[in-house]
């Protein structure tokens, strides 16, 4: 997947996230402060503007531009988390012209490590990291990029589903304790949504 295709993928992702605003907001109303969808919408509208105005030369540049746009315009925990994820994840790809399965997984891994470093959360804490971790495990030994994206999307969805059984240890949901049980983590839903839209964009 070259820079142009990556850009096209992120325009599709942006549309999907923006369309899912109400669903993500409701998820955050259940265990957070009810603004996750609104924030993600702000972030991905910034992504649309950014990409409309630029033609990044590499997949890494696309990812970093998107991360920067999200970081600068979203705010809240999600802005820092998803902004950091795409920025750091993209940086790991260096100058490669074509994103392959291995590159994709290294992007996910570098993004995860940066988010963990930034926020101090780990898998099992009921955050987007749970969806991300499962996505990484599934994509690791994929045949090609299509397969990697398909596996990662499915894994992320499963990981997000799994957060229903978790008690949050970070973010606004933390304080809910037991009451968060049965509700998926909003950020985890968003990560799954992003990977699914990426897969479907192929």
């Amino acid at each position: 997947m070259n820079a142009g295709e990556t850009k096209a993928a992120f325009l599709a992702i942006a549309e999907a996230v923006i369309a899912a605003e109400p669903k993500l907001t409701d998820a955050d109303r259940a265990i957070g402060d009810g603004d996750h969808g609104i924030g993600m919408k702000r972030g991905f509208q910034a992504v649309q503007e950014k990409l409309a105005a630029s033609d990044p030369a590499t997949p890494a540049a696309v990812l970093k531009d998107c991360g920067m746009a999200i970081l600068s315009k979203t705010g809240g925990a999600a802005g820092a988390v998803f902004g950091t994820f795409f920025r750091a994840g993209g940086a790991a790809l260096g100058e490669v012209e074509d994103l392959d399965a291995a590159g994709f997984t290294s992007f996910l891994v570098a993004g995860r490590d940066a988010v963990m470093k930034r926020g101090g959360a780990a898998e099992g804490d009921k955050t987007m990291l749970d969806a991300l971790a499962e996505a990484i495990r599934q994509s690791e030994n994929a045949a090609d990029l299509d397969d990697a994206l398909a596996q990662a999307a499915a894994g992320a969805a499963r990981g997000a589903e799994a957060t229903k059984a978790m008690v949050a240890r970070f973010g606004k949901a933390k304080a809910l304790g037991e009451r968060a049980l049965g509700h998926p983590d909003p950020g985890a839903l968003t990560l799954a949504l992003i990977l699914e839209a990426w897969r479907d964009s192929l």
Partner: protein
Amino acid sequence: MFKMKKIINDPAQVVEETLEGLTLAYDGDVTQLAGGSALVRKEIPDGKVALLIGGGSGHEPIFHGFLGPNFADGAACGAIFAAPTPDVILEATKAVHRGKGVLYLYGNYAGDNMNFDIAAEMAAEEGIETRTVRVWDDVASGPPDRVEERRGIAGDVYMIKIAGAAAATLDSLEAVERVAVHARANLRSLGVAVRAGSIPETGKPTFELGDDEIEIGMGAHGEAGVRRQTLTPADPLTDQMMEVILGDIDLASGDEVALLFNNLGATTFMEMLIVNRRVRQLLAERGIAVYKTDMGAYVTSQEMAGFSITLLKLDEALKRYLDMPASCFAMTR
């Protein structure tokens, strides 16, 4: 679902218009930067340690309503209930910096922590030294041995008052940081939620609470507290709240405290005054003297009904900083 009646224009513009209206209400003392999301004092003395505060919007007058002489020098504002972005924080940081470094003072929430930390790293790259003091006064949100998990609520007000006075008088960032950390160690709050506020964009309540329910310790965004129960008369409720607060800080007979009652939005002065009556009885029983009482809507959550009680254990230094004349949109001393 019932949509809350609000006097606004385009729901998507509430923050922008609120910050514009606030800047005008400062009657010339404050300007807007970063596309309007950062408010900064026009006249910050050279060589002064700068105090930068900030957080999500929708909690007015905190944070952006606390700029002024002997209060904060600037505020980075986020969207409704969302921490400000690193860009806004960085631009505000540069604008308030007067060569002595910048103290970041804000409530302890994941979003604020991460965004301010990212901004701090960017500021460092530009050669601006920053220190961070996160406010974590809410005893309902973490055990005493993990205070760093606690949320910042109404204690913000005393923290800004004291750090603002310190930043105006002390001449090193470390010294100001030390005063703020000392104040924080003597600060405890506990709130009670009676009715939810609503998010302007959606008009939806931030949480669900039964018609006859209240929740002790619930956070300003509906974060769960220590106990949900049916509506309780003021005196027994106050007893419950004070038991938690007094169990978390050691106060001996003869000690002095400052007492702050914060209205989350729609609670009446009458209710808080009735609660104060009981609080004073309980403190008197323990021989604890009240040096000063503050009551008002300082850290709100839209039209949420509920209030919090904040206790600040005082020593001579804290009294001095608390008493130092200061003025801003939200409060004058």
